[in-house]
């Protein structure tokens, strides 16, 4: 009997302390792909104020990494939903890297003023960081786990501020 108790405790510990196993119980909303874990590409970019951001600095938290451009229709449609989601989940511990692909400061500034004024954009000025991530297209979103592994990818634009996606992201954050 004692042996079964120990086995139970071991299984419980395994499931509830191992993020990847716990994440398996999370329901994937539509358009989210689970990926074979791989290290996130090295990502260091400046924001519009010239402050440098490095993905590594967010190690220990889930990171929502998003690539966009102002000329892309679905990016424009998706941006307000991302801003809504961020305004709630950043306070709960989600880290965010909003990466503009190959546009200039003026374009990015005027676009965000209209669509999502609270977002802090990171400038991939020559598009080379975006290339390293090899997105399927724009917009592209990846979810990076607290160990720096890319675990999920979103297909195209998603309604991030709706219940299925908010629950999914909250579920992920509980796994860290």
């Amino acid at each position: 009997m004692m042996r079964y108790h120990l086995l139970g405790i071991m299984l419980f510990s395994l499931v509830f302390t191992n993020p990847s196993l716990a994440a398996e119980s999370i329901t994937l909303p539509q358009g989210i792909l689970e990926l074979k874990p791989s290290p996130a590409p090295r990502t260091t970019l400046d924001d519009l104020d010239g402050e440098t951001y490095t993905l590594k600095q967010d190690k220990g938290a889930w990171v929502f990494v998003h690539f966009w451009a102002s000329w892309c229709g679905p990016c424009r449609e998706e941006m307000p939903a991302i801003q809504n989601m961020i305004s709630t989940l950043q306070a709960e511990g989600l880290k965010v890297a909003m990466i503009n692909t190959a546009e200039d400061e003026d374009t990015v500034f005027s676009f965000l003023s209209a669509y999502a004024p609270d977002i802090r954009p990171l400038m991939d000025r020559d598009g080379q960081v975006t290339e390293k991530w090899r997105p399927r297209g724009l917009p592209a979103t990846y979810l990076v786990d607290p160990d720096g592994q890319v675990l999920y990818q979103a297909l195209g634009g998603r309604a991030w501020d709706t219940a299925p996606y908010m629950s999914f992201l909250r579920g992920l954050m509980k796994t860290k």
Partner: protein
Amino acid sequence: MLYLPILEIYKTLMQTRNILLQSTAGLLSLFLAAPGNADPVPHYDSAELAVGLMPRAPQQIAAFYEARGFSKPMVERLKQQCFITVWVHNKSQNIIWLDLARWEFSNPNSNVTRLDRHYWKAEWSKMQIPPAHQSTFRWTLLPEILDFQPEEREGGNIVLPRSNSPMQIHASFPTKADKSGIPITVIFNNIECAQDP
């Protein structure tokens, strides 16, 4: 990849689709008139896959890329070509592959060679185009190869040498993750490069 006005194209396609052809044994041919003949945007629609084409006039191409800050020589180079915005929607629950190597373009006289990413990379390099503009241009192209996931939609431009001859586009879409499924074949006839009004 592009997502140029993909949503806009999608809406147009949805509004105008009045030809629905059923795929049989994975093989289907479409014989659609070219745009400009008061016919709908050329498109294919089955239970598994939808594909739409929208030829772009030189002025449309110029307006789009000029607005992205592209230089005059770059825009002039692009205006000389035949741009077709392609939209693909995997409506099935299986993987469907877009593989442009399996697309054939021809006019009544000969095969037409698509101007692919390698071609443009070499051109932009010769013209010393800034990397940011090269990057933006690449993102507006249809991916060379992509495993469309269930319900996924993507789009982008294909670029062909401009010609006045109507073209046939023969596109084969492998299916299943390992491409072992029956391919879906789509044939568009009488596709013409769009002209400025």
